[in-house]
């Protein structure tokens, strides 16, 4: 008989190995899925994971895309991971991302057509503020009324989408857009554009911020008292209370940081790769970032690697759509399966597998 025996401490080796096992399992099951769809499985896996980086025909285009896609994912996932560690579940990052983009773009468009170096920094502030404000709604409701933050933050995604639809057809609509919905293109407004910093690298301010945030999160979690409080709240809530950690402060801190980072990601996206506010400029990064956070084991360095891997599946997925006619949704399923396998293989981290009866 197989039974599980709880480890006294999570295995460090397994913590590092299980994400790799999960990726391999996802490739195998994904391959079977592609075969069922009538596509060559090995070729599909190669196109998704190998060709975007090393194929001479595509690599020059897709390598920069890797950073473009990984930037927002890492930014959002780092914020989410802080909350997840403390048992605070912000799953409305998509909404905070949208609100950050709206506030940031709105700030920039308010100055149009003035040119000044202060405009972009002001937009960054406004973007972070927008996301922070949107995340403060579940945070305050949680601390004041003990309202479930999972449901409130998620409901607010739908509200944010409605606001996005409204402003892209009204408040922020391009007056010279000949009636088409959508704002002015910020890429054509030099003071507000989030431009590529090095030609053909994909490196823009959002990617730079993502790298900086990884370092800050690492220091926060390993060296700072707030990081210790966050970890303590998640791992031993009772001990945290005895140690004088105020739950309300941790909630405000975690939701605030994750909202702000999601808002920043939204601003960098809308002023950079997306270029303008449209009804559907958001592409679900807020939800994919949840997978990134778990795939990275809620650890800043892990999230950095996981963000790059997840960006690869986006680009590879697009390539596979082009080359093999693979449906776009299969990549979404692929990413969902990855999270499932990752959670399933976690059992090896926390338990030993034993054969035979208990002694």
């Amino acid at each position, binding site marked *: 008989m197989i039974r599980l025996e709880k480890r006294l401490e999570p295995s460090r080796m397994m913590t590092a190995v299980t994400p790799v096992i999960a990726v391999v399992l996802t490739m195998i099951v994904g391959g079977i899925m592609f075969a069922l769809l009538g596509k060559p499985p090995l070729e599909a896996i190669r196109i998704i994971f190998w060709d975007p980086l090393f194929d001479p025909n595509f690599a020059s285009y897709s390598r920069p895309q890797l950073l473009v896609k990984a930037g927002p994912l890492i930014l959002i996932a780092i914020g989410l991971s802080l909350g997840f560690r403390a048992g605070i*579940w912000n*799953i409305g990052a998509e909404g905070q991302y949208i609100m950050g983009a709206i506030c940031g773009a709105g700030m920039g468009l308010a100055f149009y057509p003035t040119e000044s170096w202060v405009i972009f920094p002001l937009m960054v502030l406004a973007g972070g503020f927008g996301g922070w404000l949107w995340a403060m709604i579940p945070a305050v*409701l949680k601390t004041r009324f003990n309202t479930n933050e999972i*449901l409130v933050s998620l409901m607010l995604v739908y509200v944010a989408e409605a606001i996005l639809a409204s402003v892209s057809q009204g408040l922020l609509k391009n007056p010279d857009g000949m009636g088409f919905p959508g704002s002015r293109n910020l890429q054509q407004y030099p003071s507000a554009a989030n431009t590529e910093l090095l030609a053909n690298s994909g490196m823009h301010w959002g990617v730079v911020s993502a790298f900086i945030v990884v370092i800050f999160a690492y220091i926060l979690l390993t060296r700072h008292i707030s990081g210790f409080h966050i970890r303590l709240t998640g791992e031993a809530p009772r001990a945290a209370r005895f140690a004088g950690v105020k739950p309300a402060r941790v909630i405000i801190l975690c939701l605030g940081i994750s909202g702000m980072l999601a808002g920043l990601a939204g601003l960098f996206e809308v002023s950079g790769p997306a270029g303008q506010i449209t009804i559907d400029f958001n592409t679900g990064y807020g939800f994919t970032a949840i997978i990134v956070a778990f795939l990275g084991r809620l650890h800043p360095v892990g999230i950095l690697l996981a963000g790059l891997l997840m960006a690869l599946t986006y680009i590879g997925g697009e390539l596979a759509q082009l080359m093999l006619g693979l449906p776009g949704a299969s990549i979404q399923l692929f990413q969902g*399966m990855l999270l*499932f396998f990752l959670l399933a293989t976690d059992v090896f981290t926390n338990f030993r597998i034993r054969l035979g009866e208990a002694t």
Partner: protein
Amino acid sequence: MDISSINPFLLIASLMVSATPILLAAIGEAVVEKSGVLNLGVEGMMITGAVVGFVIAVNTGSPALGFLCAALASAVLSLSFGFLTQVLLTNQVATGLGLTLVGLGLSALIGKPYEGIKSPTLPSLDIPLLSDLPVFGIMLFSHDAIVYLSILLVAAVWLVLTRTRIGLVLRAVGENHDAAHALGYKVIRVRLIAIMFGGACSGLGGAYISLVRVPQWTEGMTAGAGWIALAIVVFASWKPWRVLLGAYLFGGVTVLQLNLQAAGLAIPVEYLSMSPYLITIAVLVFISARGNQGAPASLGRPFHASS
């Protein structure tokens, strides 16, 4: 604008239809949570039910078979959640989110070739004599079979939970799984059955959206109904009849805002369409400010016999 064009009796009839998917999903989730498991994958199971029900109904021409297969498919999908959380002891919140993401991806993949097709829909089941009543006939007694089934299901869940031994065991497992285990009840087995029941109900609810309410397939068509169902369970304090009340109140708000849109109220469409979500938040705040009475004590906690 013309408010008088809104007929209150037709409003009640259409709110019953509009509330049925959330009612089905919420009553299933109430049972799951009563057994001490928090399954956040309702949205994923609903959308899977929606696509499976639609595909089967289009291919066989039988909506009834569509509903049956939708319930089965979502129950099987929920079993993957059950296996992960109950056997491999994964975090229930994360696994539920994963289930939603898998369900959304899977349904988009299956449904792609079926976009833009109309499905065969259910005939309305006029209850003899009662449906001939003036006003009330149209309002309450000429719906399709699933509307009545959903109300019967609420009654059945109430009866089983409060009046039978099975219900007692289920509640014991949900309130204190260690004590229930010590008494010899199979905690994991009870929870797996509850999870599958919840899955089947969500599947029926999803299929009701794609086969009756819309009746078409579009990607992501459940649009948060699963999350609203989760909120309604909290609103209802885990009590079956209050789930019915909550779902119908919510259905009423949805139908009213659609009617106001159609009547050309001077409020922009976007603000009206966000109102159901805002009202859900307001209700959640109101309920939680009073304190969450009735939450099962073991809700969301993992159970392992040795630890």
